[in-house]
């Protein structure tokens, strides 16, 4: 849960159609060095990466520009999240390439908390749609339940 209620209103997902970028912001009640460690240390990434809440079955991190990483979940061992680090500037930001897109994760200190911005920059509109549809394919049953609930909400007949 975001620590700052004002940030929650800004935490929505934004699709920038001009730059084919997905962007979202979250605020955490922790110093940014801890956020940076949570993203870059295998023993920590394994604790939170899998959306199902299960620890990763494998987490390899070669933390240097050009170094590879690979996060493997129990539910989708055939589809690890894998890529190459491009920029590593602790505790400010991290840039990597994965699944054909560029990921940028930045940490900013705001009133003793950390504002995390995640940007996923895709090559094209088609690629953006592919990245989004990945959420469907790797969706947990929980995610699917959310999707069905979402569809029910949005499919209500118009008056």
């Amino acid at each position, binding site marked *: 849960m975001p620590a700052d209620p004002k940030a929650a209103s800004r935490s929505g997902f934004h*699709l920038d159609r001009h730059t084919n970028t997905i962007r979202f912001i979250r605020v955490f009640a922790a110093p940014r060095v*801890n956020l940076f460690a949570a993203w870059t240390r295998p023993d920590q990434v394994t604790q939170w990466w899998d959306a*199902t809440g299960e620890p990763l079955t494998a987490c390899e991190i070669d933390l240097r520009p050009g170094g590879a990483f690979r996060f493997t979940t129990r539910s989708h061992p055939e589809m690890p999240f894998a890529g190459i680090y491009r920029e590593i500037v602790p505790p400010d930001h991290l840039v990597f390439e994965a699944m054909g897109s560029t990921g940028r994760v930045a940490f900013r200190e705001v009133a003793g908390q950390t504002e995390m911005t995640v940007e996923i920059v895709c090559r094209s509109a088609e690629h953006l749609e592919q990245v989004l549809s990945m959420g469907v394919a790797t969706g947990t049953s929980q995610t699917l339940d959310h999707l069905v609930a979402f569809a029910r909400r949005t499919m209500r007949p118009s008056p």
Partner: protein
Amino acid sequence: MVIDDAGTDRLNSVFQALSDPTRRAILARLMAGEATVSQLMQPFQLSQPAISKHLKVLEAAGLIEGGRDAQRRPRRLAPQAMRDITQWIEPFRQQWESRCAHLDRHLATITTTET
């Protein structure tokens, strides 16, 4: 977002198709590029009829289609299935919401400042 009856039917068949973990995994595989039935049999360790049955459901939901090579009959993702992007961002968002919730809990267990 208002969806007419035809849209509702289509969404229902999409959800039905997505309700099976094997079919979701097949979709995930096809995101990496088109694949034939025999190419799909290997990673999923399923028989040809089993794979074909899953492909039929995915095809009926409009999620996949036949590729260019008629002889090998490869399947690929159907571009029109991805048309309504608002429909697809929701599971992606949910995935990151869960992930951020886990991250939040994880950070709470770290009481010291990392160096």
